[in-house]
């Protein structure tokens, strides 16, 4: 056994790419393992093994994707437009299931009731929201007017936001239909030190109600709507679907690891098969048991036993 090991180590350590077509070992030309690997059939086999490994790696990636997958927007219930009234009720809190719901609503904007909300981010830039006061077409069960805050758009500077708000305010009230994303009201905060005392940095419905006109006999929704679609003079507010956070699925992670191992294994199998072929070709059969044939290098074993 020791003899076999010694021989094996010698041959493997002697594998040199620059060794030429073969080496002369005791009068017998020996092809190196590397030379064998370079033969077309083993190159083709390697390409196949790599293709299989790539397939396995792709499956692993797919499993990883599944492990941290969020609900696809197409399947998310929030992406189907629903009527606003029904999802929200005046004076009632918004339910968790309705947060981020896309809604449609009909009504008319109250001229003059446009407010600016400062410190709003849109695609990473700080700017202003222009928020309108929408009176819904339908009235409440008790016949009262229903008011909804609608964030109509974003502007990068205060002057642009003011210009857009002035323009919108000057339009006469007329019925409109809009779609947008419904969000729960934010809590009012004291304006930052040094800014104008009436500056709003939060979309607080409770704050807006006190600035709006004609609220004496009206009810208000605690949800506000971010309008989808461009409004003249303003940028559309970026409001993506809510991210449904799923916990990491360990099962999929393990499957991904498994596929990675399989991919490595496909390449290792190729190596094993080439090496096997090479050892056989070079007559490196020391310590190898074979049956049913007269093996050269095994003296005294000329009989075929079957």
């Amino acid at each position, binding site marked *: *056994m020791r003899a*076999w090991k010694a021989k094996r180590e010698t041959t493997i350590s002697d594998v040199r790419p620059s060794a030429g077509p073969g080496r002369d070992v005791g009068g017998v030309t020996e092809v190196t393992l590397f030379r064998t690997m370079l033969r077309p059939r083993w190159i083709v086999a390697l390409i196949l093994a790599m293709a299989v490994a790539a397939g396995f790696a792709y499956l692993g990636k797919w499993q990883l994707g599944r492990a941290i997958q969020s609900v696809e927007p197409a399947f998310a219930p929030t992406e189907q437009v629903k009527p606003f009234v029904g999802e929200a009720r005046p004076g009632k809190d918004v339910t968790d299931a309705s947060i981020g719901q896309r809604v449609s609503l009909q009504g008319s904007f109250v001229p003059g009731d446009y407010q600016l909300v400062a410190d709003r981010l849109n695609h990473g830039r700080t700017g202003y929201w222009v928020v309108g006061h929408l009176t819904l077409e339908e009235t409440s069960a008790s016949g009262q007017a229903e008011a909804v805050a609608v964030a109509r758009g974003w502007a990068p500077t205060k002057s642009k936001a003011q210009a857009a708000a002035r323009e919108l305010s000057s339009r006469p009230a007329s019925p409109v239909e809009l779609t947008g994303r419904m969000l729960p009201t934010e809590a009012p905060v004291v304006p930052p030190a040094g800014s104008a005392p009436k500056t709003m940095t939060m979309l607080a419905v409770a704050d807006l109600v006190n600035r709006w006109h004609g609220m004496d006999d009206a009810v208000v929704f605690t949800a506000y709507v971010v309008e989808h679609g461009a409004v003249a003079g303003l940028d559309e507010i970026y409001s993506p679907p809510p991210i449904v956070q799923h916990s990491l699925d360990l*099962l999929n992670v393990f*499957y991904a690891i*498994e596929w990675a191992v399989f991919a490595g*294994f496909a390449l290792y*199998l190729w190596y*094993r*098969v080439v090496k*096997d072929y090479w050892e*056989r070709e070079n007559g490196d*059969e020391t*310590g*190898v*048991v*074979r*049956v*049913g*044939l*007269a*093996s050269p290098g095994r003296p*005294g*074993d000329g*009989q075929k*036993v*079957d």
Partner: protein
Amino acid sequence: MAYTPGSDEDASLLARILAQLRSADSARPRRIDLPKIPGALRLYRVTAYVTGTMLLLLVAEMIVKYGVGYSLYFGVPGRPGFSFVEFNPLQTNLHGVDVSTAILIVHGWLYVVYLFADFRLWSLMRLSFTKFIQIALGGVVPFMSFIVEYFITRQVRRFLASVRQEDEARASAVDVHAAGEETH
């Protein structure tokens, strides 16, 4: 076409593959590995039976789930023991243990163990690559793992028996030779 393990290069590819499927005589184990082979064979046989059984369970479960439309659950509140629950791909937050999914997962991992046993037997015996694929695929087709297991076990045992026989024949030849020398 007559085939002998030694004449690999002369036989056609198809003839070689067929011969490799039908016997393990092209195995070239190292003598040092011979004592490990029976253990590897035992591991392979156990995993073949386990995988085969799990695969049949899986097939039964698939028929029940997609054919009849039920999932098997254990310990659903209000229903002691196992119970069939209407299968709904969107409703996955049921209480109780989803036995159907558990079978799926366990089968997946046991097949990996089967593949490992396949690799161990294959590399100790230094069989052809065809043999590795043959055994691996045996665990994929229902009932096939039992059939493949039967033939593989028989082939490996025949190979080991041949090795033993040849060793004994050689040993007695040496004895006769030695005895002959002494008498001279």
